[in-house]
C-alpha cells in the first residue's frame, strides 16, 4: 500500500439507536487522498457509521456513540470539539441533491460566509469560482450564478452540492449514496469528479451499487449487520475476497 497517511482512525466504535445496537465494534483506518467505499446490504450500518465521522448523528437524540474516532489524531468526540467546526473540515454530500433554494452563488458562498473564510467580495468570488470548478460545473453555470440552484438538472444539482461541500476547503469528503438519484450519464460525471477530488481530499463514499464501489474506490469496506466484515484493496475484494460473507454479498447471493 505504500506510505499513504492515515486520515481517519476509528477504534471499537459502537452506535446505539435507543436499544438497537446499530454499529458493533467497528475499527478501521481510512487513508488520505484515497477513495474508500462502504458497501453492504440495507440496514447494515454503513450510513450510520458514515454519519459518525462528521457527528451528524448528534442531531438524533436517541443516538449514542462510544469508542474513539480520530481525525488527524484528534478525537472528534472530545468535549472541546465543536461539531460545527468539525463539519467545516469534514464535508458531506447527501443522497438526494439538496441545494438551498437560493442562487447558485449563494449556495456555494454560504459555507465560506458563515465560517468567515473570505475577507471581501473579491475573495468570496474567487472561492465560489474555485469550488464550482472543482465541482466540474463552472462552465455550465458561470453565466447564471444568480439563477436559483433548484433550477438545475439532477446531475447538475448534485455537482452543485459537491461544489458547496468543497467550498469550505474540507479535508475529508463524506458522500452518502451520491448517485442513487441520478441517471447513468450524471452518475458517470460525478464518479469522474470523485476521481479528480481524491487528489486533494480523503473521500469516503457509501454506495448500494457494488459496481460503483468497484469503479470509484481504491479501498473497500464491507459492512454486514453492524459489523465491518472485511476491509481491503478494492481489486482484491472483488476478485478474491477473504470472508465468505463478503463473497456471498458481492456475487449477489445474499441481500
Amino acid at each position, binding site marked *: 500500500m505504500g506510505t499513504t497517511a492515515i486520515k481517519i482512525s476509528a477504534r471499537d466504535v459502537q452506535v446505539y439507536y435507543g436499544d438497537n445496537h446499530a454499529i458493533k465494534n467497528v475499527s478501521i483506518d481510512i487513508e488520505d487522498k484515497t477513495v474508500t467505499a462502504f458497501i453492504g446490504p440495507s440496514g447494515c450500518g454503513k450510513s450510520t457509521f458514515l454519519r459518525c465521522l462528521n457527528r451528524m448523528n448528534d442531531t438524533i437524540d436517541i443516538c449514542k456513540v462510544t469508542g474513539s474516532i480520530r481525525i488527524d489524531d484528534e478525537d472528534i468526540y472530545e468535549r472541546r470539539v465543536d461539531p460545527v467546526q468539525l463539519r467545516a473540515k469534514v464535508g458531506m454530500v447527501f443522497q438526494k441533491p439538496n441545494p438551498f433554494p437560493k442562487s447558485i452563488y449563494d449556495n456555494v458562498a454560504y459555507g465560506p460566509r458563515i465560517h468567515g473564510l473570505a475577507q471581501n467580495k473579491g475573495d468570496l468570488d474567487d472561492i465560489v469560482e474555485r469550488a464550482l470548478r472543482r465541482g466540474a460545473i463552472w462552465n455550465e453555470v458561470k453565466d447564471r450564478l444568480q439563477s436559483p440552484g433548484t433550477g438545475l438538472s439532477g446531475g447538475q444539482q448534485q455537482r452543485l452540492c459537491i461544489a458547496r461541500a468543497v467550498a469550505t476547503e474540507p479535508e475529508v469528503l463524506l458522500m452518502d449514496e451520491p448517485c442513487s438519484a441520478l441517471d447513468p450519464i450524471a452518475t458517470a460525471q460525478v464518479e469522474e469528479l470523485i476521481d479528480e477530488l481524491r487528489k486533494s481530499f480523503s473521500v469516503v463514499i457509501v454506495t448500494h451499487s*457494488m*459496481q460503483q464501489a*468497484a469503479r470509484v474506490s481504491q479501498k473497500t469496506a464491507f459492512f454486514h449487520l453492524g459489523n465491518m466484515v472485511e476491509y481491503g484493496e478494492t481489486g482484491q475484494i*472483488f*476478485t*478474491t*475476497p477473504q470472508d465468505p460473507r*463478503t*463473497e*456471498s454479498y*458481492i*456475487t*449477489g*447471493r*445474499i*441481500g
Partner: protein
Amino acid sequence: MTQQHITSAFDRDLASIQAKIMKMGGLVEAAILEGAISLETRDEERAEKVRAADKAIDLLEEKINEDAARLIALRSPTAGDLRLVLAIMKISGNLERIGDYAKNMAKRTGVLAQMAPVSDSAGSLRRMAKEVSKMLKDVLDAYIHRDAELAGDVIKRDSDVDQMYNGLFREFLTFMMEDPRNITACMHLHFIGKNIERMGDHVTAIAEQVVYLVTGEYPEEDRVKSDVTSTQTI
C-alpha cells in the same frame, strides 16, 4: 458455492455453460480413448469417426465462448463467479486443443494402417493415451467437485506422461536406427506420441485453472517438466 444467486437466471446461465463444458470434456475423453483403440486395432473406420466427431467439439468451444461473453456482459460476475467464467473459457480452449490432437492421432492412424506395425509401439501409445485420458477424467472430476487437491495431484502425474514420452522417444530412435524402413512409420508414431504428451500438458493447464478457480491463485510451484528430450542428447 452452494448458495443460490438471488437472480435465478444467473444460476441457470452458469449451469448451462458448465453443462457444456462437461459435455465437451466427455466428448474429448471419448475421442482420446477411441483414437487410441483405433490406432491399436488399425481400425480405419473408427479413426474416421473420431475425425468427424471433432467438429462437435469445435462447435461446443465456440458456443462456450459466446456464452461466456454474454455472461460477463449481462451478469457482471465478480469474485468466485468471475474466476469461474474465466476458468471455463481457458478450459474450453484447452479441451479443444486436446480434441484437435486426438483428431490428428486418428488422421495418422489411417496412414499407419497401410504400413507394417512397429513392434508394440501402438500398445505403449495406447497406455500413454489411457493415462492422459484418466488424467482428464480426474481433472474434470476435480472441476465439478471444486477439489484443488485432486487437481494438484493431476498436475504431478503429468511427469509420468512425460517419462513415458521420453521412453517412447528413445524406442523410436532405436527402431529407426535398426531398420530404416521403419522411419516413416516411426515418424508418424513419434508425432502421435508427441501429441499425446501435449495433451497431457493441456490437461495440466486445465488442472491449474481448477486450482485458480478454487483458491484464487495459480499453483506456485513450477510445473515439473520431465520432458528432457529437447535438452538432453539421448
